[in-house]
C-alpha cells in the first residue's frame, strides 16, 4: 500500500563484537578445555554426560537459527526481514557442532551402555536394537545428517548474503524453494539426533514424542536468544531505525507462543506415558519424579513454562525490552536445565549435580558458540540489506 517509501535504508554493515567480549569468549573456551580435561581425570563418565548435554544444547541453538531463517524464507515473511540475519549468524556454529559431535566418539563407551557388547548380549531389548544402536552407524548417520543440514544452511545463508550485494529478488525465490528441503531434512535429522544422542542414554526406553519435545526446546531457546541479541543490537544503536518496537513485540509473541508449545508437547509426552502406565515406558518419568529430580521436574512446569507464560502474557511486557532480555536469559537457562534433566538422570538417579565440571564445560561451549557467531557477524552485514521485503518491514506498524 502506501508504505512503500522510496527512502534508502541505512546499512549498518557488519557488527564487530567488542574485543573485550571476544576475550571473554576465549577465556571461556580455555576454562572449558581445562574443566573438560580435568573432569576426564576426575570423573570421566560425568564429564562426558556434561559434554553431550552442552553439545546438544548449543547444537540446537545453531540448528534453530537455520530453522527460524528457513521458515521466514518459506513463508516470504516481511516482518522478520530486519532480524533474520541474526538467526543466520547462529548457524555459524553448525560446523563446530559437527566437530564436537565427532569428539563425542571418544566418549561413547562412557555414556551409552548400548556400545558395550557385553551389556547388549543377553538383553532381549538391546539385542533387538543392536542393528540401529551400533557405534559406526551412530556416528555416520548423525554426521551425515549434520552435514546435510549444514549444506542446506550454507546454500540458504549464502543466497541471503549474495542478495546483500545483488539485491536480486530471484534469490528470495530460490531460498523459498530450498527451505522445504531443509525443513524436511531438519525434521528427520533433528529427530534422529535427539533419539540418538539423548534418548539412547537409556536404550531400553523410548518415546515417539522425544524428537518433537527436543524440537520444542530448540525453538523455545533460539527465539529467546534471538530476542536477546536483537534487543542488545537495537539498544547499542546498530539496528536503530531498522528494528522498531513492533519487531521486538513480534519476537516477544513468538517467545510466548513457543513457551506454550513446549509445555503442550512436554505434557503430551508425560500424560500418554502416565496414562498407559506401561512398565517399559514409565521408567523415564519414574527416575525424574524421584529424589531431588522431582524438584527439577517441578521447575520445568513452574519455571520453564509458567514463569515466561505469565511474564510475557501482557502486551506491555512484550514491548518492554529489558523485561524481554531478562525473560530470554531465564528461558535459555531453563532450556539448559531441561537438557540436563533429559540426560543426567541416567547417571545420577538421586538428583542433579551441577558443579565445576558442568559449569566449566558449559562455558567452553558458550565460548565456542560466541566466537563462531561473532566471527560471522564481523564478516557479514548484520541486516539482510538486500532483502526486497526489508523496506516494508522497517516502516512497519502493526499490533
Amino acid at each position, binding site marked *: 500500500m502506501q508504505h512503500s517509501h522510496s527512502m534508502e535504508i541505512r546499512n549498518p554493515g557488519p557488527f564487530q563484537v567488542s574485543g573485550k567480549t571476544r576475550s571473554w569468549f576465549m577465556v571461556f573456551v580455555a576454562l572449558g578445555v581445562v574443566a573438560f580435561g580435568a573432569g576426564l581425570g576426575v570423573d570421566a563418565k560425568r564429564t562426558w554426560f556434561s559434554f553431550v548435554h552442552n553439545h546438544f544444547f548449543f547444537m540446537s541453538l545453531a540448528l534453530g537459527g537455520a530453522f527460524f531463517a528457513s521458515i521466514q524464507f518459506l513463508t516470504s515473511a516481511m516482518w522478520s526481514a530486519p532480524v533474520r540475519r541474526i538467526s543466520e549468524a547462529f548457524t555459524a556454529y553448525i560446523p563446530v557442532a559437527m566437530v564436537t559431535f565427532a569428539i563425542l566418539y571418544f566418549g561413547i563407551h562412557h555414556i551409552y551402555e548400548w556400545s558395550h557388547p557385553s551389556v547388549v548380549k543377553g538383553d532381549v531389548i538391546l539385542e533387538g536394537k543392536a542393528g540401529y544402536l551400533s557405534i559406526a552407524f551412530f556416528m555416520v548417520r548423525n554426521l551425515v545428517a549434520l552435514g546435510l543440514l549444514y549444506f542446506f544452511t550454507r546454500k540458504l545463508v549464502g543466497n541471503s548474503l549474495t542478495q546483500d550485494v545483488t539485491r536480486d529478488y530471484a534469490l528470495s525465490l530460490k531460498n523459498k524453494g530450498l527451505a522445504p528441503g531443509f525443513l524436511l531434512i531438519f525434521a528427520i535429522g533433528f529427530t534422529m539426533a535427539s533419539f540418538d544422542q539423548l534418548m539412547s542414554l537409556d536404550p531400553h526406553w523410548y518415546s515417539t514424542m522425544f524428537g518433537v519435545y527436543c524440537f520444542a526446546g530448540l525453538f523455545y531457546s533460539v527465539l529467546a536468544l534471538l530476542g536477546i541479541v536483537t534487543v542488545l543490537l537495537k539498544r547499542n544503536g546498530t539496528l536503530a531505525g531498522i528494528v522498531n518496537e513492533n519487531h521486538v513485540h513480534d519476537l516477544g509473541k513468538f517467545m510466548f507462543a513457543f513457551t506454550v508449545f513446549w509445555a503442550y508437547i512436554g505434557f503430551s509426552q508425560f500424560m500418554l506415558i502416565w*496414562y498407559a502406565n506401561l512398565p517399559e515406558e514409565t521408567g523415564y518419568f519414574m527416575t525424574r519424579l524421584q529424589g531431588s529430580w522431582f524438584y527439577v521436574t517441578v521447575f520445568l512446569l513452574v519455571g520453564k513454562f509458567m514463569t515466561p507464560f505469565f511474564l510475557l502474557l501482557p*502486551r506491555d511486557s512484550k514491548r518492554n525490552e529489558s523485561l524481554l532480555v531478562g525473560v530470554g536469559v531465564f528461558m535459555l537457562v531453563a532450556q539448559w536445565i531441561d537438557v540436563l534433566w533429559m540426560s543426567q538422570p541416567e547417571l545420577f538417579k538421586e538428583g542433579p549435580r551441577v558443579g565445576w565440571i558442568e559449569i566449566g564445560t558449559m562455558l567452553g561451549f558458550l565460548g565456542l558458540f560466541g566466537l563462531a557467531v561473532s566471527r560471522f557477524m564481523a564478516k557479514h552485514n548484520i541486516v539482510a540489506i538486500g532483502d526486497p521485503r526489508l523496506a516494508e518491514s522497517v516502516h512497519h506498524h502493526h499490533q
Partner: protein
Amino acid sequence: MANATQTPQLSGVVGFFNDAHVLIEATKKVRDQNYQFFDCFTPYPVHGLEAAQGLKRSPLPFVTFVAGLTGGTLGYLFQYWTSAVDWPINVGGKPFHSGPAFIPITFELTVLFAALSTVGAMFLLNGLPNTRRKSVDPSVTCDRFAIVIERPPVVAEDDEKGQAKQAKYKRFDEAEAKGLLEKLGASEVRSVYAEGWF
C-alpha cells in the same frame, strides 16, 4: 413511522476521504479539535488509526485473562468434585484425584470460557448488536474512508453535571465542522441525519 413528516434530526457531519494516509492526518487534526464524539469508518483495518483517534487500549484482554483463569479453575474443581467426591470410580487403578487426567479438560474449559467471554465482552463494548444506527454510507465498506463528527445529545438547561461535562469539549457547530472536514481534504462533506436501523 410517525416521525416521517418531521424534519429528521441532525446527528452529525461526515467527510469522505479517498486515501488512508489523508484520513490519518485528518483524524489527528479532528482529534485536536476536542470534539466530544467523532469516529472513523474504513473498509479495512488501517494501521495507526486508533493512535490517531487517541483511542485508549481496550479492556478486552483483561476480560479474556480473568475468564480464562476462571474457566480453568472451575474446570479442574468440577472434575475433582465429580471424580473424587461425588461419584468416585476406579479408572485403571489411578487415584480418584488424578491431576494429569484433568488437565486436557481444564485446558479446554480455559479456552472455552476465555473465548466465549471475549466474544461476549466484545459485543458489549462495541454496543452490538446495533439497532440504533445505519451505516453512514455504503461506500465506507468498499472504497472510501470517512470521519463522522457527531452532534452530542442535547442536555437540559438545568442538568448542571451534563452541562459541565459538555463544557469540557468543543461545542458542535454544523457549518464549522463541515468547514473543518473540507479544509482537511475531504472529497465530499455532508450532514448526517438520524434514520435509525429500520
